[in-house]
């Protein structure tokens, strides 16, 4: 078949049993074909596929992402699958990609650590006409020239949707503390600007009282929230840029003697099981999904590309969201 288009989310009833695959939005922008890219046709089952992961598989998102791609590579039956992990070091990712090329990778799937800075690696791939599919973080480079296409979520949109959830959940009046991701991370920047812009536009009675970094980590999210709750006892909602910090904030709220989900609402982005289960339990208010299961969509895109079909340069994932009304039903699709 071809890439899924159209439906917003898999029908919740059946998806609960299995992991939810990604759903792409219909392609509207420019496309890229094998001819455009001037690549060679490769039979996937005869190909060496390299995957360059950016960050350690030590959090649910990265684990699910790597797992999904590894599983799908096996399912598709690629001849050889090699993976590397840059451990959050940009220069290591460049050399990882070069290593993959040196080891004969004919197709590359890259989860970029950063939007900029991978140029030498891309150039090396380009020199050998190796198609590069980038996932989850968009590169500042020319699609269909430097790489084939980008598959991933719109992080700004995620921030915006979290703001919408928060506005709806609080009835439009709240004092919000924002737990930022790590500084200098593009995801942090996008999820922050999306959120703040939306609040400015649609939440006139919502004030952001603090923005502090929680480094995407649960313990940091917890301790920062504890501090903020003491200096600003009137905080009524928390927006955390990932679930881990949200869960840390939840622990802090409990230890401050307040009820998470009621006295202080919590919204976050990711869609991990731990967080969604808390919505089910009524102690968490909303989660915007950032679906990490890139495997099927990525290999489908590669297959299409090799078949000569023009694939979208930007394949944007339609992330679902969890709120008290659907969490119980959809918790099975959380990762």
């Amino acid at each position, binding site marked *: 078949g071809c890439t899924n288009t159209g439906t917003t989310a898999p029908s919740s009833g059946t998806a609960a049993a299995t992991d939810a695959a990604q759903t792409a939005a219909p392609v509207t922008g420019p496309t890229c074909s094998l001819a455009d890219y001037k690549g060679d046709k490769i039979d996937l089952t005869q190909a060496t596929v390299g995957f360059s992961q950016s960050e350690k598989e030590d959090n649910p998102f990265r684990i699910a992402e790597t797992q999904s791609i590894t599983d799908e590579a096996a399912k598709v039956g690629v001849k050889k*699958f090699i993976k590397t992990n840059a451990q959050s070091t*940009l*220069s290591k990712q*460049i050399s990882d990609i070069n290593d993959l090329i040196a*080891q004969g990778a004919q197709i590359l799937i890259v989860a970029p650590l950063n939007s*900029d800075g991978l*140029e030498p690696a891309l150039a090396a791939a380009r020199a050998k006409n190796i198609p590069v599919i980038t996932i989850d973080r968009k590169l500042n480079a020319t699609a269909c020239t430097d790489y084939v296409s980008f598959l991933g979520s719109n992080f700004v949109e995620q921030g915006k949707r979290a703001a919408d959830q928060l506005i709806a959940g609080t009835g439009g009046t709240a004092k919000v503390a924002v737990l930022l991701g790590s500084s200098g991370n593009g995801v942090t920047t996008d999820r922050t600007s999306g959120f703040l812009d939306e609040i400015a536009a649609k939440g006139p009675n919502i004030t952001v009282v603090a923005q502090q970094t929680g480094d995407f980590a649960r313990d940091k999210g917890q301790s920062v929230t504890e501090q903020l709750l003491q200096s600003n006892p009137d905080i009524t909602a928390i927006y955390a840029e990932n679930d881990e910090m949200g869960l840390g904030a939840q622990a802090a709220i409990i230890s401050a003697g307040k009820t998470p989900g009621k006295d202080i609402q919590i919204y976050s982005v990711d869609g991990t099981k731990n967080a969604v289960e808390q919505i089910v339990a009524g102690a968490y208010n909303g989660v915007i999904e950032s679906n990490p299961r890139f495997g099927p969509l990525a290999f489908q895109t590669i297959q299409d590309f090799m078949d000569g079909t023009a694939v979208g340069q930007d394949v944007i994932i339609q992330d679902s969201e969890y709120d008290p009304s659907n969490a119980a039903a959809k918790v099975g699709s959380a990762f």
Partner: protein
Amino acid sequence: MTTLEPAAGPTTDRQAARERVAGLLQSYGAAIVLVILLVVGAVGFPTFATPGNFSNILTQSSFLLIVGAGMTFVILTGGIDLSVGSVFALGGVLAAYGSTFGLLGALVFPLVVCGAIGALQGFLIAHAGMAPFIVTLAGLLGVRGLVLATTDGGSTTPLITDPVVVALGQGEVLGIHWPVFIAVVVIVVGSVLLARTRGGQSIYAVGGSESASTLMGLPVARVKFTVYVVSGVCAGLAGALNAAYSSSGVPTVGVGLELNAISAVVIGGTLLVGGRGNLIGTVAGVLLLSVIQNLINQVGTLSSSVQAVVSGAFLAIVVIIQTVLSRTQRL
């Protein structure tokens, strides 16, 4: 004239010879382990011993080599510089901003500022008598803060568009990238400075015994000050080259770089308490770290956790071998 017999005529010579051999082992232990690893890699993986792969290892190593060279200077005096990772990032960001003024801007800007940061740290250490660990730890924090402050909290990444600057990072000669050649120059110049100049000798002396150096009338404070400037400049240069290589000044690079640099230097046989070591050892140490990473990638199926365990174990084995080799020298 009364002439004292050399204590034990021939024994003395033999002992001296033994010491020299052991000294070589100390300095070149890392190189020996490196050769072993290279052989293992070549035998074990068909894609390891290829020119492309070696070129990649060299390019990857070149930035750490330059940082490690500066770190070697510092460690030789018995100090330590934890700020290099942040200074590396600052160098990259400044190079990117500076590249709008061309190659000169891309180099002068980061080198001057990073040198100044090194000078500030050097001043606090050499003249205010503060502990290097703490001063440069504050440097690690503060300079990273500066990087974030100059990039709008890390949300903007200044890009390098000047073709000459980009060529400095990405251009190659004989399949080797420019930064590798620059690293070689740094190492050669650094080695000559250390081994063949008075300043270099005072670095060893200060590390060997600070109080004796003071009493012997060496300008101890100036020596200590200078090595931090050197380290700052080296980290800035490496950062600038890295930015040119990736044509952008990414504000988050260099996190944890200090630990890599320190371990490369120490694996290379330089004593952390100072007074002994050289840049050739550091080269071997850096290449060792890169080759270990490369070999792990050659396996290609390890999860990041397994990778961490393997590289940690590798590191432990390497330093143990290195220590045992160099210990033969102790009486």
